[in-house]
C-alpha cells in the first residue's frame, strides 16, 4: 500500500465530513492563532520597552572616578582628579566594543536671559554625547568640532530651559544667554525627551563643548566623567571589562588593588524590565498552549467517535485486504491533516489577529518567525500524538466483528 493511496483515502474520508472536520480543526485553529497572537503581543511589548530603554541609552556606560584613601582619609569620589583626557583617548583607540565616547563635565548654576532666569545644569561634552544619550536637535544645529577645540562659547538648550528663558515663545536660536558670568550663544534646540523612568526631566539642561565648561566655568583639566556607548546592549559586559583593563593600566593599579574608578551601566534596569515582559510572554504563551492542548484533545475525541462510527468501514477495508498498519496510517493521516490544515489556518488567523490588535488598539506587536514554526510543529505533533490512540484502536479491530458492527 503506497502512501499516495493512503493519503487519497484519508482526504476522501475527511471530505465526506467537512463540517465535522472543520469544527475539529477549529480547536487547533484557535489554539495556534492564540499562541501566535499572544507571543506577538508579548514580544511586541518587550521590544517597545527595550526601544524605550535604548532611547535612554541602554548601552550607555558611565565611567567616574572612585573614592580613595590617602593617609587614612576617605576622599569623596567627586574630589578625585584621576580621570584624564588620556584615559578617554586610550579607551577610544583600544576597545572594540565601544562606538561612541564623550567626556562629561558639568556645573550647576543660574541661566539668565534678559529678565528671566532659571536654575539648571550645563553639561560640557563632546559631539558623541548626542549619539550616546540619543539627543536630537530640533532647531538650529549642534556645535562643531572647531567649537570644541577653541572652547567656543556656544550651547544647545533643552526645552524646559527654553520655556523658562523665553516664555513668550521667541525662537531661542541665535540668542545669547548667560550662565553664571559667561555668555553663551544658543546654536540649537534639543528635541524634547520628557521625563525618564527615574522621574528626571531630561529637557532641563544646557549642552556646551566640554572644553568651554572645563576652562571657562570650572577651571579644571581633569574629566568628571567619561560616557560611552557599547556596540549594543549585549556587549556592555565586554566593553566594561575592556575599559576597566585599560584604566587599570593607565592608572598603574597593581593586581589585587581596588579600582580608583567606577563603571556603571544601564543594564540592570533594562534586564529587570525585560524580565518582567518575558514573564508576561511566558504566561500568555502558557494560556495559549493550553488552548492548543484542548484543541488536540478535541481531535482525539472526534477521531475516537469517527473510529467507532466507521467500524463497519474499517471491517470492510480489512476484509478486502487492508492491513492493520494501513488502517493505522489512514487514521493517523486524517488527524495530521486536520491538525496541519488547522495549524496553517491558525498561523494566518494568528498573524491577522495580531495585526488587528496592532492597528485597532495600537498595541506594539512583533511576530517572531520561530513562534510560527514552533506552533506549526507543535500542532503536527499534536495530530500524531492525539491521533495515535484512536488510529491504534481502529487498527486493532477484528475484521469479523467490525464488518457486522451495527
Amino acid at each position, binding site marked *: 500500500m503506497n502512501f499516495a493511496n493512503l493519503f487519497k483515502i484519508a482526504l476522501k474520508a475527511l471530505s*465526506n465530513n467537512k463540517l465535522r472536520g472543520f469544527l475539529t480543526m477549529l480547536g487547533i485553529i484557535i489554539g495556534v492563532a492564540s499562541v501566535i497572537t499572544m507571543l506577538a503581543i508579548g514580544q511586541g511589548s518587550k521590544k517597545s520597552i527595550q526601544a524605550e530603554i535604548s532611547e535612554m541609552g541602554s548601552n550607555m556606560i558611565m565611567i567616574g572616578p572612585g573614592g580613595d584613601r590617602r593617609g587614612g582619609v576617605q576622599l569623596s569620589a567627586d574630589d578625585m582628579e584621576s580621570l584624564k583626557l588620556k584615559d578617554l583617548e586610550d579607551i577610544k583607540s583600544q576597545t572594540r566594543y565601544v562606538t561612541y565616547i564623550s567626556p562629561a563635565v558639568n556645573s550647576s548654576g543660574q541661566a539668565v536671559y534678559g529678565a528671566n532666569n532659571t536654575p539648571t545644569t550645563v553639561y560640557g561634552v563632546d559631539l558623541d554625547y548626542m549619539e550616546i544619550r540619543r539627543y536630537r536637535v530640533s532647531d538650529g544645529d549642534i556645535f562643531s568640532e572647531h567649537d570644541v577645540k577653541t572652547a567656543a562659547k556656544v550651547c544647545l538648550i533643552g526645552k524646559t530651559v527654553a520655556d523658562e528663558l523665553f516664555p513668550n515663545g521667541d525662537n531661542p536660536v541665535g540668542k545669547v544667554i548667560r550662565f553664571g558670568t559667561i555668555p553663551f550663544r544658543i546654536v540649537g534646540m534639543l528635541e524634547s525627551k520628557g521625563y525618564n523612568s527615574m522621574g528626571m526631566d531630561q529637557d532641563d539642561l544646557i549642552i556646551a563643548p566640554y572644553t568651554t565648561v572645563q576652562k571657562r566655568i570650572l577651571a579644571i583639566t581633569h574629566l568628571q566623567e567619561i560616557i560611552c556607548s557599547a556596540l549594543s546592549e549585549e556587549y556592555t559586559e565586554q566593553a566594561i571589562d575592556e575599559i576597566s583593563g585599560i584604566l587599570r593600566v593607565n592608572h598603574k593599579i597593581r593586581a589585587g588593588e581596588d579600582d580608583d574608578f567606577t563603571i556603571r551601566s544601564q543594564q540592570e534596569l533594562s534586564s529587570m524590565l525585560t524580565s518582567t515582559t518575558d514573564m508576561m510572554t511566558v504566561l500568555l504563551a502558557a494560556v495559549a498552549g493550553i488552548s492548543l492542548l484542548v484543541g488536540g484533545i478535541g481531535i482525539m475525541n472526534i477521531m475516537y467517535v469517527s473510529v467507532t462510527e466507521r467500524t463497519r*468501514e474499517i471491517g470492510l477495508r480489512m476484509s478486502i*485486504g487492508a492491513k492493520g498498519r494501513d488502517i493505522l496510517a489512514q487514521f493517523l493521516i486524517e488527524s495530521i491533516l486536520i491538525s496541519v490544515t488547522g495549524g496553517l489556518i491558525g498561523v494566518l488567523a494568528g498573524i491577522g489577529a495580531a495585526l488587528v490588535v496592532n492597528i485597532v488598539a495600537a498595541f506594539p506587536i512583533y511576530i517572531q518567525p520561530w513562534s510560527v514554526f514552533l506552533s506549526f510543529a507543535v500542532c503536527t505533533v499534536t495530530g500524531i500524538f492525539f491521533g495515535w490512540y484512536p488510529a491504534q484502536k481502529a487498527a486493532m479491530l477484528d475484521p*469479523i466483528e467490525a*464488518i457486522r458492527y451495527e
Partner: protein
Amino acid sequence: MKEVIRLEEIHRDFKVGDEVVHALRGVSFTIYSGEFVTIMGTSGSGKSTLLNTLGCLDTPSSGEYYLDGVSVRTMDKNQRAVLRNRKIGFVFQNYNLLPKTTAIENVELPLMYNSDYSASARYSRAVESLKAVGLGDRLLHKSNQMSGGQMQRVAIARALVNDPAVILADEATGNLDTRTSFEILVLFQQLHKEGRTIIFVTHNPEIAYYSSRNITLRDGKVTDDTRNNSILSAAEALARLPKQEE
C-alpha cells in the same frame, strides 16, 4: 479440474466464558475451479464460522485449509490480508459500500491496497468490472443514490475487480426483494458461466436450485454434499415473476 479450496478436518473452537463452543467439528471438502457452490445451514450450524475461515478472516483451531494451493493455517494477519486482497472477492448481505462515495471509487477500493496497480490501471479495471455487472452507465453514482440491487451490483463489481480465485457471497440476496434477488442470481449464474468460482452462503434453500453444488451444514459438520445436475435458470424464473406495478 483445478482445486481452488481444500478443507481437511477443520475444527474451530471458541471459548465463551468457561465453556468451549465447537463451531466447526471436522469439516472437509474440496471446491474446484468454476463451481457455483451454495453452503446451506440454519443459524448456529457454523456457516458463519466456515465463511470466515474460507475468507481467511479467521484461522481454524486445527485442520488444514489450502486456498489456491497455499496453506492458510500458518499465515499471520498481514499475510492473510494480502491473500484476501489478491484471491478473494467478498459480497456481503448489507453491501458494505463506502457512504457518499461513487460506484467507481467503491469498486477501486481493493486495488487501492495493491501497489501493483497504477491509478489508471485501477480505473480501467474498475470500469471493466462495473460493465460486467451491467452498471457501465452508472460509474459516478454515489452509493446513497442507488437502489439495493444497484448497490449489490456495485459490491459484486468490487468483488470481481481483483480477479479473485473465489467469490464469497454471504447472504448476498438477503436484503433484497424477490425480483431483485433473482436479478442478482442471474448475475451470479452469468459469472458462473464465465468460469468464476462462487461460494454462496445462505439459509434460503431455494437458492440451491440455481447452483451447481450444495453443501449442507449442521452442528458444525457437513451433513450433505450433492452436485446439482439440473441447474435452474434464474433468468427464466425472473421472467415468470408477475410484473411489478410501476
